[in-house]
């Protein structure tokens, strides 16, 4: 047999070979292993059954490794340290099996902590630490205009074009705009989420198409051939992963678009979650909507290789400064903000995520304190055995090790349970989590989370196993041997246990305080006057896009007919159309210029959200009219342009004077003057907790252009389900191709606006509940332990005349002192650390003293309650019974 032939079956299993090299006695290793290798190759040769041969090889290897009882010449299975370790492990397992109550309690406590930590980490990891699936993702930055008040906003196309031309540190820059085309095919119409992007977009993101090709600059111009790129998942799901789709066309907005490529599977639309289709932006600088103050585009850029972020930031800032000097009217005192993509993604969610992670960490620490306490008690119970072993010459390390191994086994079991818990909890968490957490769709309990659980298991095991051992060994051997039944055991371990309970109580107070503040915060947020009525109202998004709606007249006519049709639905009290709905995702802000009659100058006022509405909007939404009038059907395109503003805008511009009759312009300088005819109350928009800014209403008929995308609000006492169906039918009766989307009640809309805080609130509540439970168990355990160890002392006391009340009082004082110390430390920490909650808090100080005081009292009560049972048991100790054991 030649070596070449022998190699045909592949190499025998390496791990098995390794095992053999280490386990077979040297005097026969070469021959036995050689035999096995030869037999392996023979089997591969003759039967060609490589798997069978491997299996046989493994079996022989394992059998050869285990062969020790009969053959005294072989190496013992465990040698030196290994022997003892193996022995210790099997001893520890036996001991743990003998005390299933302890094992289960300790490991489940740890499981709670590990589970919470792993689940929350799984949710937060993709956003905070997970690698973005783009080449050199750290070079991707976002660019935003920074306004006078420090707020950040989108850029106008011309600004982006200037930055592209003049910046020396950016290798590519792309403008991005949301796009929501309606896809029509044999199966019907579907509204897609998409993006319109510059042709340099994929270059900026560091991504290449998986199939087909990227956009060309020629396609990124007005009136170019319509082309699109598809998201990988969407291509799989909608087109069954058919590669021949590339080159074919799909019908979007009634126009054939050619599919030129498919994005790679790992591409994630982080700029707009769920965007499944890309088209070229197709802007040129001469277009009307491409101006500098038409700020409706997001900009992403890639820094040149080797250019630090700070240098790039200075560079774009200086380019922008030149633009500002050139166009002071447009840019005023604005600046340009360059933010790394990752930082921009987690800007608003980083704080809340870290706060929730912190809460999980606190819970983990409490669980650890509790388990450590259990181990301390166990060490005390085993005091006699330990003392004898020490007297017989066992080293301190050897004694500590047995406890350490037990602790590691328990924490390993805890981590296993915890991981199962995290798996189970993750589903619930994802259902509850607000969509605003970036990359939430990437959250899963995968290998890194498992590794985290393993790391936690090792750390927790080390701490909870070594701490009691450290203190158990603190007292000298002679002292320990001298301890007899009459001595009150009040050694170092007692200090440890008390300290742990104090730590536990203070951590629990931190969590409770956080939960208390968040609960109030959410309540206050939900109690915020949104400025409109939410009862009995449903809303839905409608869009009129595509070739059929090419002319503005057609769009306007369609909306008129839809409005009429819906109003005519039986049971509908009123119905209105609006281009923007408070607290929805709509965001349509405009610059406002006021007329100063005295000197004939235009004065630019605060920006305002534009609501182009039908005349019955204020009635339908229940927005209160404070002065003047709202619109009437007589406000038409041909009549004088009118506008209604909100209270904040009126007060900001006019103070106590009436704004009625004043004139303003919105948008470009060429737009007409509009006369203010009324003032309405403020509504909350775009979020519940944003300070209310300017809001202005104009008749839809008088808007400069026909909005293709509107929202329909219906006020009716009908059941929302029934109402939605009838309204949908009414819309369809007017125009079959209008997709109806995002249907919800207005109360659901408000609820969703509070979702991020509610998520954090629920988690804190759950953690706080677990914390208070663990803290109560902890203090109960310590007082019970104290009572148990001091039965004789209690017996002596009661024999000497102590009343039951005195003994009860004694132990209650013990528990009370621990509770007081824990609460004092925890209260102090809550006041110090409260600021961590700031991003989550609304309408209440993150270290509200009343809340902290209230939860302190609550926790104190629970602690005393947990003390009461063992203390009562102590007071019932019968002196005769207690002393009879002497």
């Amino acid at each position: 047999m030649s070596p070449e032939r022998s190699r045909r079956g592949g190499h025998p299993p390496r791990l098995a070979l390794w095992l053999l090299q280490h386990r077979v006695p040297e005097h026969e290793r070469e021959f036995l292993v050689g035999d096995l290798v030869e037999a392996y190759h023979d089997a591969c040769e003759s039967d060609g059954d490589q798997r069978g041969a491997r299996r046989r090889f493994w079996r022989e290897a394992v059998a050869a490794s285990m062969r020790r009882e009969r053959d005294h010449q072989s190496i013992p299975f465990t040698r030196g340290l290994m022997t003892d370790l193996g022995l210790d492990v099997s001893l520890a397992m036996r001991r743990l099996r003998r005390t299933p109550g302890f094992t289960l309690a300790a490991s489940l406590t740890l499981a709670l902590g590990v589970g919470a930590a792993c689940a929350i980490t799984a949710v937060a990891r993709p956003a905070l630490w997970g690698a973005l699936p783009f080449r050199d993702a750290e070079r991707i930055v976002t660019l935003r205009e920074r306004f006078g008040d420090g707020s950040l906003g989108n850029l106008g196309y011309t600004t982006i074009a200037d930055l592209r031309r003049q910046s020396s540190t950016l290798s590519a820059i792309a403008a991005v705009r949301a796009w929501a085309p309606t896809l029509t095919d044999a199966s019907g119409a579907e509204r897609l989420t998409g993006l319109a992007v510059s042709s340099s977009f994929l270059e900026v993101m560091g991504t290449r198409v998986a199939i087909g090709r990227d956009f060309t600059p020629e396609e990124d111009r007005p009136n170019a051939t319509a082309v699109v790129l598809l998201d990988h998942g969407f291509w799989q799901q909608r087109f069954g992963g058919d590669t021949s789709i590339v080159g074919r066309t799909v019908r979007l907005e009634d126009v054939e678009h050619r599919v030129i490529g498919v994005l790679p599977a790992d591409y994630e639309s982080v700029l707009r979650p769920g965007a499944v289709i890309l088209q070229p932006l197709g802007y040129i600088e001469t277009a009307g909507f491409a101006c500098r103050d038409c700020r409706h585009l997001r900009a992403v850029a890639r820094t040149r290789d080797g250019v630090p972020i700070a240098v790039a930031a200075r560079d774009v800032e200086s380019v922008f400064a030149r633009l500002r000097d050139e166009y002071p009217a447009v840019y005023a005192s604005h600046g340009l903000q360059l933010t790394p993509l990752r930082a921009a993604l987690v800007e608003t969610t980083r704080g809340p995520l870290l706060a929730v992670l912190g809460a999980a960490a606190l819970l983990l620490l409490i669980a650890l304190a509790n388990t450590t306490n259990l181990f301390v008690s166990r060490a005390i119970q085993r005091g006699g055995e330990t003392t004898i072993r020490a007297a017989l010459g066992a080293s301190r390390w050897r004694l500590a090790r047995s406890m350490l191994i037990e602790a590691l086994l328990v924490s390993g079991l805890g981590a296993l349970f915890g991981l199962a818990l995290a798996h189970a909890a993750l589903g619930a968490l994802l259902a509850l989590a607000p969509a605003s957490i970036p990359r939430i769709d990437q959250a899963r309990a995968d290998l890194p989370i498992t590794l985290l659980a393993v790391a936690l298991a090792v750390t927790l095991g080390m701490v909870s196993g070594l701490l009691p051992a450290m203190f158990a060994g603190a007292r000298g051997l002679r002292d320990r041997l001298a301890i007899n039944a009459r001595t009150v055991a009040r050694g170092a371990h007692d200090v440890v246990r008390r300290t742990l309970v104090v730590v536990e109580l203070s951590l629990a107070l931190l969590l409770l305080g956080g939960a208390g503040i968040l609960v109030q915060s959410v309540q206050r947020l939900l109690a915020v006057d949104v400025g409109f009525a939410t009862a009995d109202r449903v809303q839905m998004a409608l869009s009129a896009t595509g070739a059929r709606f090419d002319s503005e007249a057609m769009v306007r006519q369609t909306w008129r007919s839809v409005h009429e049709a819906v109003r005519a639905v039986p049971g509908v009290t009123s119905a209105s159309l609006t281009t923007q709905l408070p607290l929805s995702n709509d965001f349509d802000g405009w610059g406002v210029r006021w007329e100063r009659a005295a000197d004939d100058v235009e004065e630019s006022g605060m920006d305002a959200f534009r609501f182009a509405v039908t005349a019955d909007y204020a009635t339908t939404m229940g927005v209160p009219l404070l002065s003047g009038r709202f619109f009437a059907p007589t406000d038409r395109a041909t009549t004088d342009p009118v506008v209604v503003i909100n209270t904040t805008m009126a007060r900001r511009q006019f103070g106590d004077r009436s704004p009625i009759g004043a004139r303003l312009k919105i948008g470009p300088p060429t737009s007409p003057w509009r006369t203010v005819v009324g003032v309405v109350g403020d509504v909350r928009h775009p979020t519940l907790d944003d300070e209310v800014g300017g809001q202005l209403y104009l008749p839809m008929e008088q808007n400069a252009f026909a909005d293709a995308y509107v929202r329909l609000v219906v006020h009716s006492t009908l059941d929302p389900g029934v109402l939605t169906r009838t309204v949908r039918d009414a819309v369809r009766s007017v125009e079959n191709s209008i997709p109806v989307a995002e249907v919800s009640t207005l109360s659901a809309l408000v609820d969703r606006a509070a979702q991020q805080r509610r998520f954090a609130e629920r988690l804190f509540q759950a953690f706080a509940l677990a914390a208070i439970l663990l803290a109560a168990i902890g203090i109960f355990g310590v007082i019970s332990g104290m009572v148990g160890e001091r039965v004789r002392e209690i017996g002596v006391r009661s024999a000497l005349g102590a009343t039951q009340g005195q003994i009860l009082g004694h132990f209650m004082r013990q528990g009370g002192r621990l509770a007081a110390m824990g609460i004092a430390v925890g209260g102090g920490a809550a006041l110090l650390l409260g600021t961590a909650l700031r991003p989550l808090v609304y309408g209440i100080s993150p270290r509200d003293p009343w809340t902290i005081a209230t939860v302190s009292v609550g926790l104190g009560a629970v602690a005393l309650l947990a003390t009461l049972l063992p203390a009562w048991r102590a007071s019932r100790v019968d002196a005769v019974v207690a002393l009879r054991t002497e």
Partner: protein
Amino acid sequence: MALGDLEQLVMLALLRLADSGFGAAVQREIAERSGRDVTLGAVYTALARLEEKGFVRSRIGEPLPQRGGRRRRHYEVLPAGRTAIAEAWQAIEALSRGLRAQLEG
């Protein structure tokens, strides 16, 4: 000196294999002839004992490529071994005489 059950099988296999007896060959011979699946480790243990008892002797061969450059250890039965196996056989034969019907029934 008496022979263990496995030791008997190993000796018989070695006798059958004549000059080409080594661990894996013995194992295969036992498996093919008697259908008994013994591990190679057990075969080596038995061979070591037989060598200790002076029933077999071994010599070490050349490194072989199909064994990854490892050498073979060849075993051969010594006269003492032949005697021992013969005695064991005689004992079995003597004791089983007249029991055939009973054993096969």
